[in-house]
């Protein structure tokens, strides 16, 4: 039986197809661009095409993320905190602490061995410490996002950012450029500043190994290193962890489906 998890985030929409609650069949990704419904449908369509199944073979769909209630064709919705905890433990069974850096918010949580969230702290009030900050830096430093990490990793003397505010940090970074601080040093400073903000949340929750990073920044090696250095722990990272919340949603969908004991309404006929 195939379940789908859709994570309708502020920046990107992530999706996965999961078979029998165990095997990842497909992952998909699309920029949300203010339209989560369209982004979600596109992601689902592409995944269904990719694995070559009929749309109705996807028996159950569970949404998560900020726009989880906006997506109509769903059977269930779960909070992104619940979902990313489950997803992180699915990818790294030893996970006891999850750091999730999203585009508009960041959070740290401690989880049980089944992936149930025990405690969490989050920041959704301020762009410092959110992935959006990295996007903005990439834009005004004119470095493509995927080139940021290699350049940052080559930094000899990372330039720390003293401003906490993402907007004031911009001015500081521009001044650093004017002072001819090497680009790599500035970029590593950006990741370290993000790690510093995440570390504050992590400490508040209590850090317990293993630590797993989830969310889009997991694909950036510089972010993983910065977090490990700042929190002084080994950090699990896997590019699939960008989809951790979607995986968690698909898993929770699967267990709900099993409890149901009967075939749910076909997705094409779901009425909300």
């Amino acid at each position: 039986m195939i379940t789908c998890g859709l994570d309708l985030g502020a920046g990107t929409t992530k999706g996965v197809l999961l078979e029998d609650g165990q095997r990842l069949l497909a992952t998909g990704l699309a920029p949300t661009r203010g339209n989560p419904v369209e982004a979600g449908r596109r992601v689902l369509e592409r995944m269904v095409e990719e694995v070559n199944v009929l749309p109705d073979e996807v028996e159950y769909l569970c949404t998560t993320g900020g726009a989880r209630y906006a997506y109509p064709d769903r059977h269930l919705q779960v909070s992104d905190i619940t979902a990313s905890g489950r997803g992180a433990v699915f990818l790294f069974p030893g996970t006891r602490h999850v750091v999730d850096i999203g585009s508009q918010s960041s959070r740290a949580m401690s989880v049980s061995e089944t992936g149930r969230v025990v405690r969490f702290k989050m920041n959704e009030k301020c762009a410092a410490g959110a992935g959006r900050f990295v996007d903005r830096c990439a834009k005004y430093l004119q470095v493509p996002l995927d080139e940021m990490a290699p350049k940052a990793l080559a930094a000899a003397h990372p330039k720390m950012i003293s401003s906490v505010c993402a907007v004031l940090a911009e001015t500081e970074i521009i001044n650093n450029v004017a002072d001819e601080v090497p680009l790599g040093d500035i970029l590593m400073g950006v990741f370290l500043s993000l790690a510093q903000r995440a570390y504050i949340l992590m400490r508040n929750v209590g850090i317990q190994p293993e630590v797993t990073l989830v969310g889009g920044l997991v694909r950036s090696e510089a972010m993983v290193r910065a977090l490990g250095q700042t929190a002084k722990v080994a950090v699990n990272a896997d590019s699939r962890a960008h989809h951790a919340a979607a995986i968690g949603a698909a898993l929770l969908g699967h267990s709900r489906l099993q409890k149901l004991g009967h075939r749910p309404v076909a997705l094409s006929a779901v009425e909300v």
Partner: protein
Amino acid sequence: MTLVAGVDIGSTTAKCILIENGEIVGKSLAPVGVELVKDAERALSQALTESGRERREVTVVTGTGYGRFKVAFGQFTVTEIGCHAKGAHFLFPGTRVVLDIGGQDTKAIKVDPRGEVVDFAMNDKCAAGTGRFLDVCAGALGYDVSEIGALSLGARHPVKVTNTCTVFAESEVTSYVARGKDPKDILAGLYGGIVSRSLSLMQRVGVEPEVTFTGGVSKNEGMVRTLEHRLVLKINVSPLSQYVGAIGAALYGLERVGGIPA
């Protein structure tokens, strides 16, 4: 006759004021770049040119503002808090509270009847509620910050801007624009948010008339009206409100060299 200069190097603009015999005789204002030392020099030379005076006539130069240590040619530096208090007292002797909203920070300053600082509260950690916030949000509306001043005055149904963070508020403005909201109503919502943040700073020092509004944001008429409305108080805004820090600096210098304070 003592000619003194105050140079205020802010995060966004450099201001210079020349004072002689208790009168302002010259001024200049220009955006700052990355070479603050040169910006400071230019501020002074422009003020001198404007007033037809010579550099050698200036007895003392005092620097203030976040870049005050870049006023390399000055004799003294004073914090902008003291300068805003003194400058506001010079323009409006009845001032008891100064609200200064600059490019990158916001301060509420309580002053005594002589214009000395009694207490202050400031936000310099975060761009929320500062001139920078207005800049960014005006940009999201498709305006330059200098164009939006009176635009909100006819607002009927101000929107509620729920985000404090500048980055998130910018997205919120963009989404209001996309939903077809009137820019007037969006601006009125933004001013409401900034004023709320300013009031909480002012309440920390205690609100008491007269209130004098200084800094670049005080040039914005919509902000002035919103503040008056919320305070239920007429507030002082001078046409020289952007120069208050520089005025205060010039007066400090004058006192230090034993001149007659205004």
